[in-house]
């Protein structure tokens, strides 16, 4: 059942953010970006019209993986990296459940990278929320698979020599059908992305840039500071041109397969010449180009929905196959099963 269908069926459910908050003391460091993500999840949950008992939050290990303890839904705080695999089992056991994964960058992309890409590939109907702070927080400050090259951390005193992953690219390349990015310090945008993800049928992935104020403070400062934000962030909206800058004075257009930044103040280019964002483009090429803005000098960081396409889900196909075979063969009977193949009688 899609989330939309669930919403229609449960219009009478009226819960508040408080109903999704447990009596457990939240133990994240004061000022941690995780607080905002938790608050937005609790805020949007009542609006989904899904009964509280049908939510399941699954996590692995890491600071962000304490998330389920603070959501008053069913929850499973499992082992490092395995949340997508455990969540898959939950969804396949009961496809009626709304299954959410909360994971950090080390958890989801390093030790759990395999489970993440395969959950995307299968298009399991679940939401995967990446808390990307580009650092190992719970183990106190080692570089992570999303840390920038050259980063000095406790385990890279001379600078990290690892290239980072681009999580959005991993998700798109692996077949995720909904891929978005948001920022902890932009609660409205984050809520919108979560609502969009919840409404999507299939694997929905949100990369959230999350500040670790203890071990990697200010990692996203240029994207959140009022002074610099406009020049460093481009908000993706379906059907709209890619425009950014303090006075909406810069645009991005495609020159062949390469994006270029153009000045909208000279009169040479107008909004019509720009890249018009199409979330529903079946071709994933433009999503990759958008994600790669990170590697290009002076390019803004896109936030918003990179891609949303429809594809059958693994869980849907699994239950369809169970029904189909049952229809074909009839409901299984042990008496018949035991006697499959050659049998003989001893009198």
């Amino acid at each position: 059942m899609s989330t939309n269908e669930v919403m229609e069926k449960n219009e009478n459910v009226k819960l508040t953010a408080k109903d999704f908050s447990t009596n457990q003391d939240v133990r994240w460091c004061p000022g941690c970006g995780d607080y905002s993500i938790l608050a937005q999840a609790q805020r949007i949950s009542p609006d989904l019209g899904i009964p509280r008992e049908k939510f399941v939050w699954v996590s692995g290990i890491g600071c962000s993986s304490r998330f389920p303890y603070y959501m008053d839904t069913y929850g499973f705080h499992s082992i490092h990296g395995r949340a997508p695999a455990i969540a898959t089992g939950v969804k396949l056991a009961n496809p009626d459940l709304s299954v959410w994964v909360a994971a950090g960058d080390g958890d989801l992309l390093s030790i759990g990278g395999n489970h993440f890409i395969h959950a995307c590939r299968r298009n399991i109907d679940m939401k995967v929320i990446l808390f990307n702070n580009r650092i190992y927080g719970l183990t106190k400050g080692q570089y992570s698979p999303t840390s920038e090259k050259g980063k000095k951390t406790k385990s890279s005193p001379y600078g990290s020599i690892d290239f980072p992953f681009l999580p959005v690219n991993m998700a798109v390349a692996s077949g995720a059908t909904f891929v978005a990015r948001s920022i902890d310090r932009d609660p409205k945008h984050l809520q919108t992305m979560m609502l969009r993800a919840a409404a999507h049928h299939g694997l929905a992935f949100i990369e959230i840039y999350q500040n670790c104020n203890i071990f990697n403070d200010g990692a996203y400062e240029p994207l959140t500071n009022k002074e610099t934000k406009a020049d460093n962030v481009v908000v993706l909206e379906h059907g709209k041109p890619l425009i950014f800058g303090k006075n909406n004075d810069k645009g991005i257009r495609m020159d062949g397969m390469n994006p270029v930044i153009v000045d909208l103040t000279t009169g040479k280019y107008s909004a019509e010449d720009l890249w018009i964002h199409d979330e529903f483009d079946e071709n994933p090429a433009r999503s990759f180009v958008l994600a790669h803005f990170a590697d290009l000098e002076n390019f803004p960081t896109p936030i918003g929905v990179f891609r949303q396409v429809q594809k059958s889900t693994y869980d849907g196909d699994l239950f369809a196959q169970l029904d189909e075979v049952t229809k074909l063969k009839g409901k299984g009977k042990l008496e018949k099963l035991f006697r499959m193949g050659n049998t003989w009688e001893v009198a």
Partner: protein
Amino acid sequence: MAKDVEVQVLEDVTIRFAGDSGDGMQLTGSQFSNTTALFGNDLNTLPDYPAEIRAPAGTLYGVSGFQLHFSSLEIQTPGDSPDVLVAMNPAALKVNLKDLKPGATIVVNENAFDSKNLKLAHYEANPLEDGSLAGFEVILVPLSKQTAASLEGLSLSVKDVERTKNFFALGLMYWMFDRPLEPTLAWLEQKFGKKPIYLEANKKALTAGYYYGENTEIFTTRYHVAPAKLEKGSYRSINGNEAVALGFVSASVKAGIPLFLGSYPITPASEILQELSNYKNFGVKTFQAEDEIAGIASAIGASFAGNLAVTTTSGPGLALKTEAVGLAVMTELPLVIVDVQRGGPSTGLPTKTEQSDLLQAMYGRNGESPVPILAASTPSDCFDMAFEACRIAIKYMTPVFLLSEGYLANGSEPWKIPDVDSLPEIPVHYWKDKETYQIYSRNDNLARPWAIPGTPELEHRIGGLEKAHIYGTVSYVPENHEIMVRMRDAKVKKIQDDIPDLEVFGDEDADLLVAAWGGTYGSVKEAVANLRRKGHKIAQVHFKYLNPFPKNTKEVLTKYKQILVPERNLGQLSKMLKSEFLVEVIQLNKVQGSPFKSSEIETKIISILGGENVD
């Protein structure tokens, strides 16, 4: 053409089919087994194949074998040494010759004994001509040529003709051992119904083989092995992996909840995954995961959400699942973990049998992490123990190990089909009541309640962090941790009240007790029976429950002056018995990738009892 044929009546026969891994020996062997089962003999089989799928033709390491032992009496093993070897090429002869009984019959494909194949088998001279096979009854059959002759007129490639010769050999063996062709003909119709040319070819080769025996002068003796007097009932042939699969489906039906298997293919356990993937009309969900860890992790998730969850693997896979087994211990969720053991460590001997993962199952986790362990003793026992593992997992809210092994998994025997109504119900109580619910409250069995997502008002969180006794919130309180560690331990120990006592077979008043576990059952039972027939006093027990041990274990072990523990590892059960019961044991250990021969156990027993093993 009539000829004089002597019919000898035999009690039991062991045949081994051997050839290249591409020669279809496994198929030939299993066809002979099925026909023999239908004929009514008791039987036991031992497929033995290389880890390489198609090793280079003619080489020694590419030899694939299938041994079967059938009898008019009840039997327990695939036979110590073959009475008959069917050797499709020189390599097959060379590899298997040392195992044969003195005076055994060797049927060889003489066409395969050319210089190329002799060289590949490292024969300096042709063994068929140099007298080295004196002492055996060698029957030379131009198998390749005869097969080709029988297929003349069919438009088949040379390769296809060559690939049909196993059916010629099978037909010949059917004649020699007085078996009907019909079951194999029917199987061929089913298998090749849509490929008439192959159907025709295989049928022709099979029949030609049979009449080759009937009509040529080289065969003067046929052997008759009368049907066995098995217990009354319906039977089918079953191997251990099939039996595990059926046991799980049955448990799912009797528990009234869907079966979920999370698994990753691994030899020799993959067949359980394959079998279960057929049973979709029983609501069975099979999830072929991205790796071993996801196999068990998905099963844990499914268990959390209320399914009967199982995961299947072999030793190297279990090593990968280890951390997740600990999670299942901590979260106290029902889960069955099947380890079809193979030779280890590491990749070890993927296709060869061993029983060396007992200590891995027992101790291979961080922290105090008790898991019940069950071990199947025969291929059909795999059904009962799979069912039993599910019962215990659900009743006690715990992961449970079921240890099988390659030999049980691939070996087959007649299985008395159980009466479905006689299988016990497995009660499942999903918790519903809000007022009385606590995540880690416990019932009389010390099991915590199973409250599944979707149940209103019972929203709760579980996980790998230690939880508060009764309330289930995260707790780092030192005293609470000790309470929980002891509670998990007590729960698993409590299962002792719910499992059968050890049963002593043989002479209760003997001085020697033979104690074994898992797949050694057949060899030990046969060895003990043979020696008791000769007047020796011996008692025998067999462990199917290894954690906890049955309640009367200490009482039984301390009753005997000497305890012999034969096992195919370096003494894993011995170690457990010694440490838990402070008894001395005599070890008999073998790690050669094959089951014990009962004669090996007999020799050891005789050396303990004094005297000689006279045959």
